[in-house]
């Protein structure tokens, strides 16, 4: 089973490249370019993880994340922004994002998705059950 991922970015070449990068490990269920489309598709596609750009044409990723979490609280949101700005990071986490990665460290996206997915679907405890459980 692979994580179901929804990509939200208004830069088409990046969407295409990201889709190809993630294909193997994830199931990319939708690609959207606006906050409005994101809010619609998330209800239909039910992704596990949303990869969300910090700036979309019709609103900021921070606002979108807040709205997203209000509609589907269990979805994991990974935001990416051009710059790793500590204030933007704080605002993103406060809005409910799992992580904020900067675009120039986009190679960490896959591991960020993996981490978010693992937090959402914890592996069964490999240790034998303890008597106090």
């Amino acid at each position, binding site marked *: 089973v692979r994580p179901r991922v929804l990509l939200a970015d208004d830069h088409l070449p990046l969407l295409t490249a990201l889709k190809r990068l993630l294909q193997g490990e994830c199931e990319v269920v939708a690609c959207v370019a606006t906050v409005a489309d994101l809010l619609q598709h998330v209800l239909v596609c039910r992704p596990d993880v949303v990869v969300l750009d910090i700036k979309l044409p019709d609103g900021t990723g921070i606002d979108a994340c807040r*709205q997203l979490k209000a509609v589907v609280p269990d979805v994991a949101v990974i935001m990416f922004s051009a710059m790793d700005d500590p*204030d933007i990071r704080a605002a993103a986490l406060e809005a409910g994002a799992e992580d904020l990665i900067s*675009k120039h460290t*986009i190679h960490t996206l896959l591991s960020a998705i993996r981490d978010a997915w693992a937090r959402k679907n914890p592996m069964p405890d490999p240790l034998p059950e303890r008597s106090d459980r």
Partner: protein
Amino acid sequence: MRVEDTPMSSRKLGRELGVPHLAGKAAKRAVASLEEALLTREEWLRLAAQGSQMGLWYWHERTQGLFWDKKAREIFGVHLDGEMTLETFYGAVHPDDLPRVKHVWRSQLESGTPYELDYRARRPDGSIRWINARGRGYYSKSGRPLYMIGVVFDVTERKEVELQRLQFSGRLLKAQDQERNRLAQEIHDDFCQRFTVLAVKLQTLAGTIERTDEQALAKELLGEFTELGSEIQSLSHRLHSSQLEILGLVASLNALRTNIAKDSDIRFELDHANIPDQIPADVALAFFRITQEALRNVVKHSGASKVEICLKGDVGKISLTVFDNGRGFNAERRGTSQGIGMLSMEERARMLGGQFRVQSRPSVEGTRVDVTIEFKQPQQILGGA
């Protein structure tokens, strides 16, 4: 300067000034040489005054008599003959500047210190002239003010050039701002995006490589790529931060406050109420930059221990007050770097039809900057869960 009236007898004046009263030939000789010296000096002064377009005045404290020479009358545009009173003078000063003029004039006379002051005069024809006035008081042995003398210059042309220069600096700042934004936008929208796409493609490619030595090379390439991308991105960020667009005005001001507070002992307080979610980008930017400049001034010049930033929203307008408890400065002195900062703040507010006001006086506690900008509420409200 010819003083027509003799308000005091020479004997009495001698007593006041502590000069012995002479009699007989010695007195005549002394008076003659004194007269000669005085005439010489008067001639020098007359030539200097003519050459420098200087107006002269004299105030006699006991009789409350005021004398102005012809040039001074010309500068203020008051009648060239006849009696001058304090009221004539007050009437010629621009009403906005009058309280300041009265205050400085009186307090300097009483404290016995010379003064220099720039203020505006309003001529009977309605034209405004800038006056540079200097003067000092003379006192009896007991410290009682006797008289005060002073000179006035018409410095309107100089002021206008100064103002134009500063306005030009303001426009230059704005142009620089716009150019920075344009460059940053270009770098972000073009180079950074392409870099990201390339990095993602490179990573995809690296994932398909099986040979370990080739994998290592791909990893190295990706590392170099990331570094280069990061440098270009940070250049774009230095030119223009998109923090304001993403976080909004209040959160950005809060971040600004926190960042400045990190390197300073000053306590920064931010208070806000009724700030709408949707503010036009140029209005938000103006408030952000004005606060940034005001805080920069506080840190650099004020020696304050506390700053209050207060942002208040009302229907279709936002008001900002930045108030510090520092040492204040001369808000009239605009030729300094602080002045240019003030002017750029004022320019930013005025460009959007806003109001800008600075209240500050040297050595008097505190500087207060007030800005109000009105705007049309955007029709389309985005989001809003």
